[in-house]
């Protein structure tokens, strides 16, 4: 069952925004995010003969997250730290207050362990359920739940938000 071109484009339209939102909060660089999304789809297309359309989105998520991980590893090896805050451009019509809050959130997110942050972002943006996220990341569903919980607790602490809010 080969992957059709229109199914690939449909998946791109569906996932571009969620992928970008997750990847940007890991890579912090707009062009890197665009390249990772593009490369993930190209790789999937190159293996189109073996790709089942039913699992296409999950495959794209896994491929994109792996490519992002490689890019982060490359940066660590070359001590290449990227801080790209094109936020006003990315947030479109958002208010200045939103911009400042988002910037604070991004600073807090940077302080979370990578694995926790990844689970939190996938839960927020991917639209996948816990067991689907577990499948994409190759970890047990229970680990997804616990990492998400821990990430939220730490994020709230970093943002100065009390647990009752």
């Amino acid at each position, binding site marked *: 069952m080969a992957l059709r071109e229109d199914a690939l484009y449909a998946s*791109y339209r569906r996932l*571009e*925004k969620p992928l970008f939102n997750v990847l940007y909060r890991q890579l912090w660089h707009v062009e890197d*995010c665009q390249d990772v*999304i593009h490369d993930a789809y*190209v790789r999937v297309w190159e293996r189109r003969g073996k790709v089942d359309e039913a699992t296409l989105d999950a495959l794209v998520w896994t491929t994109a997250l792996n490519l992002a991980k490689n890019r982060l590893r490359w940066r660590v090896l070359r001590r290449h730290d990227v801080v790209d805050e094109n936020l006003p451009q990315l947030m479109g019509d958002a208010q200045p207050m939103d911009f400042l809050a988002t910037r604070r959130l991004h600073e807090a997110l940077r302080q979370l362990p990578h694995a926790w942050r990844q689970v939190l972002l996938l839960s927020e943006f991917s639209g996948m359920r816990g067991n689907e996220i577990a499948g994409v990341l190759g970890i047990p569903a229970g680990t997804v739940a616990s990492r998400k919980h821990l990430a939220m607790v730490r*994020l709230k602490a970093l943002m100065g938000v009390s647990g009752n809010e």
Partner: protein
Amino acid sequence: MNESSQFFTDLRPPAGGLQRLHRTIHHPKGRAHRTGRLLVASAFAVAFLLLASLVPGIVMRHRQTAKLVSAMHAAVAPPANGIEVVDGAALELPSGQANVRLYLVQSNAAVPSGQNGSAERL
């Protein structure tokens, strides 16, 4: 709605991603070009490594040859304060006595068979 939704703002990816993907899929030339460049770079790297591994050997052999040639020259050169041989060569041999010099003299002229060279006391 997720508990974390209160924090996150949706970011908008820059436009043009789908067109870029469409171009790459229909004109994978760029990718082939990248592969070609990679091949050329690999060929250069292999050639460089080969050269780097061969050059020291060549230099070493050249030095050894030069040493051998100079040793041969030294061997056939007339010894200082020794005898001078015209149309031939002489090699001083250890004599064992302070007042005796022993030379092996070889003439360049045709030597009849059975007479290869002679040691003479001078």
